[in-house]
């Protein structure tokens, strides 16, 4: 078969498979892979000794995570006064960080569920890592409202349970309570989806384990999976059902998060554009985080043949599309503020762009609207180091978007006598930085101990595309030999 891919001079594994040839499907994975070579490549990540870089990164991020946990302890003992939250901005960094992390946590389930329903087979190489990223981001997100409630040890009061102390129930008309249900459902459903997807790959890990202890642990984790066809039939049905359930769920979560703002009366929050605008932003930041993580992962663990340039190219196209949607939303907000002739709305948006927080607004616009436009150029979409830089800018911009929404609206309210200027403390900064430590520690542990790529799904896609090629070859009258390694 004629190759439509050409290897890079610098890295022989870096094969450019981004060109489209009419009438022929592009290769999803490169390097003439067989079923066993896919297994080998993925399992090697966990089986080989980890590179020095892993230890350096893990050491750094685990120390940061411990610092974060210690600061949470300090916060609980002292009180939320250690943060800069002060009248009139009581929803400051904790809520900004919450929305930031929840937004990042949208890519995983989107890739697994929505791309699955759209039969986007390229998702198989990236869905596992993206789902793991989702879980870890949602963990980071859930910490913030938990410690922002003041008495963190009573955070369980958010859940409706028959309490003998309170004799009361939560208020079901509050978007903050909807948040508890939405984020709770999203976290647990994503965890189930992630774990269920891993069961067959954990069985592969089990069967390749050299020591009885490892074999036992992976054996327990994969629940004694055999790969029975009856099991696969129910498993695939369950996977399709979960995808169909998770697709509306993933859209609902950031919708509900946006209700936290939109249902209130604050100018700049009380807009109907918030749900779609938040969801687009969430997908935008989530894909940016997936790119930021997967480019180094594929490089360090030599997975360029599985997570190919085409995968990165596709993700960058999604970043471009959602980034433009977010830019459109910014413009629409301004237009409506002018068109509605609501003086408060108009003031809020002029204040955002030219008020005391003008710097935050323009960081947001340049990172979120301008930087992803570089992805119109194929060169930027297919050069790994450039896309990492742009993705990091996107996430900086998305953090600032939440900062601009939360802080500017609160600091310049309807009542000029209660205006203020928010100043973060050192604890705000350290605790935001610390959450990255938790996130990175968990992600590094995931790479080391769990299957980073959904092997069984990649193999399934290999089999069906081979089947399609087989049919194509028969139609064209050409012969096709069974087996692998002759793609």
């Amino acid at each position, binding site marked *: 078969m004629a190759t439509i891919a050409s290897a890079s001079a610098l890295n022989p594994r870096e094969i450019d498979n981004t060109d489209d040839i009419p009438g022929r499907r592009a290769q999803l994975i490169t390097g003439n892979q067989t*079923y*066993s070579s896919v*297994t080998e490549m993925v399992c090697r990540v966990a089986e080989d000794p980890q590179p020095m870089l892993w230890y350096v990164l893990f050491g750094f991020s685990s120390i940061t995570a411990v610092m974060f946990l210690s600061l949470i302890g300090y916060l*609980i003992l002292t009180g939320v006064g250690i943060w800069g939250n002060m009248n009139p901005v009581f929803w400051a960094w904790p809520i900004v960080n919450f929305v930031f992390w929840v937004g990042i946590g949208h890519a995983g389930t989107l890739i697994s569920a929505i791309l699955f329903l759209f039969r986007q087979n390229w998702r198989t190489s990236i869905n596992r890592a993206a789902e793991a990223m989702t879980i870890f981001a949602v963990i980071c997100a859930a910490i913030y409202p938990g410690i922002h409630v003041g*008495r963190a*040890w009573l955070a369980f009061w958010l859940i409706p349970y028959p309490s003998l102390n309170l*004799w*009361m*129930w939560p*208020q*079901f*008309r509050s*978007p903050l309570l*909807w948040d508890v*249900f*939405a984020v*709770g*459902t999203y976290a*647990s*459903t994503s965890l*189930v*989806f992630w*774990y*269920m997807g891993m069961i*067959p790959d954990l*069985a*592969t890990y089990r*069967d*390749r384990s050299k020591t009885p202890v490892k074999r036992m642990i992976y*054996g*327990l984790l994969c*629940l*004694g*999976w*055999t*790969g*029975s*066809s*009856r099991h*696969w*039939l*129910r*498993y695939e*049905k*369950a996977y399709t*059902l*979960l995808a169909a*359930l*998770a697709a*509306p*769920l993933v859209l*609902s979560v950031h919708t*509900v998060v946006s209700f936290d703002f939109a249902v209130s009366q604050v100018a700049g929050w009380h807009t109907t554009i918030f749900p779609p605008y938040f969801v687009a932003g969430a997908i935008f930041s989530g894909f940016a985080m997936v790119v930021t993580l997967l480019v180094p992962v594929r490089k360090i663990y030599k997975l360029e043949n599985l997570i190919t340039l085409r995968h990165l190219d596709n993700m960058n196209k999604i970043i471009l599309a959602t980034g433009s949607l977010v830019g459109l939303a910014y413009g629409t907000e301004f237009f409506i503020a002018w068109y509605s002739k609501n003086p408060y709305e108009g003031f809020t948006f002029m204040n955002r762009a030219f008020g005391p927080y003008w710097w935050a607004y323009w960081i947001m616009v340049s990172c979120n609207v301008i930087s992803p436009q570089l992805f119109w150029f194929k060169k930027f979409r297919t050069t790994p180091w450039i896309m990492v830089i742009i993705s990091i800018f996107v996430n900086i911009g998305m953090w600032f978007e939440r900062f601009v929404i939360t802080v500017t609206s609160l600091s310049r309210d309807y009542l000029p006598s209660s205006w203020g200027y928010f100043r973060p403390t050192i604890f705000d900064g350290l605790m935001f930085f610390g959450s990255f430590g938790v996130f990175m520690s968990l992600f590094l542990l995931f790479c080391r101990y769990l299957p980073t790529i959904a092997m*069984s799904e990649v*193999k399934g896609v290999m*089999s069906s595309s081979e*089947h399609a090629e087989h049919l194509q070859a028969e139609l064209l009258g050409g012969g096709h030999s*069974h*087996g*692998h390694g002759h793609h």
Partner: protein
Amino acid sequence: MSDHKPKKTIGNRPPRAFGWMAEYSNEHKLLEAARKVRDSGYTDTDAFTPFPVHGIDEALGIKPTKLPFIVLCCGLTGLSLALLMQWWMNGVDYMYIISGKPMGITPASIPVAFEMTILFSAFSTFLGMIALNQLPKFSNPVFTNPRFDRATDDKFFLYVSAKDKYYNRDSVRELLGGTQHDSLDEVIEDSTPDALPRPIWLTALLVVLAGLIPAMIILNMRNGFSTAPRFHVFFDMDFQPKKKAQQTTTIFADGRTMRPQVEGTVARGQLDEQDSFYLGYDPNKLSALENTDGVRLVATQADPKPQDTAKDGGTKVIPAANTPAAPAAALNLPWLTTLPIEANDENMKLGETKFQTYCSACHGYSGYGDGLVHKRAEALGQGFWIPPTSMHIDRVASQPVGQIFHTITKGQGKMPGYAASMNAKERWAVVLYVKALQRSRNASDKDIPEDKKPSIEDLTQPKTEAKK
């Protein structure tokens, strides 16, 4: 092909055989073999593959799963539970009144109902799949074959169970042997011991024992008795840096946490009135007095509005409330001499009503001290009975209105104070009525207004004539 021979025995018998398993290098060979096995009439068969092979369910004759039906039922359960929960919790059991919005199920119930539907559906999908697949199952005879490790890597296995009703060891072997297999093995019983290894048992035992420790501590504390203060894991708001009423403090010079009324301020409900309205005397004049009567009067007051005697120098000692104070009548105080309320018909009527309600029982309707209680006491010959004072004797008649008000408010001798029964205005109305009574009982013709005199004289004429 390699026949997998059992090397061990289980007890005294050889391990049981569960069927035959053939290995294939790709899914096409597996599908071909599976169709062949199906066409031979075997139904208790299975295939083991590293990924879901499309067409295998048809090739093996596997029926579709009922999982979607289970998920639908669970999803509807979640939806119903969510609606029921919101309706009952916020519409029946604990109703929040928010902007007059309706209770129970409203459009605001949709997000939680949606999330609960998804939550129940997702968990039933996962748990349903696990349950229908009868997982977890850690001991499986297929694992006895070391080649089977590649079933999760790149090899494909076809299995015919010995439980199949047409199963015949040799004919199945022959049938599978006729396919394009890499190996053919008999699946045998797992010969490894069933019992868990000792270290696992010990660890599990230790974990269970360690888990009992907190439960034991809690049980002990719940059933035991301790005089030590409650252990505060979290302080909540149990300890607050604040002072309560009646405590001492070093913040103020007088050492009291309760502060007197700041000069020039007005307490709630007293905006329209002078202090004298409530006291019957002028407190400013009282504090200017040099004699000790004022201090003694203050000591009799349980009123929260006395003058702050401490501010005069802090050396004056306030007598304790239980020391017998001199009767207020004997005190030379700046009593009010004019009524602070208007002497009109309305106040007179109010005073009459209140007098007849509270005072007349002892003092009598006319104020001579001949009320029903007094008459009854006389009739019973109660030796210890002190007769109520007549309001018409000189000592009482000459009292200024402020002093009468004070007597009504605080009581006198056996008479209790009536501050709890009548408010200040009502008490002043009673004073007005008492003054009217006194005047009516000691009246002379000078009290009669000039314009009324002719009519009065007409009435009294015959009486005076008779006297003369």
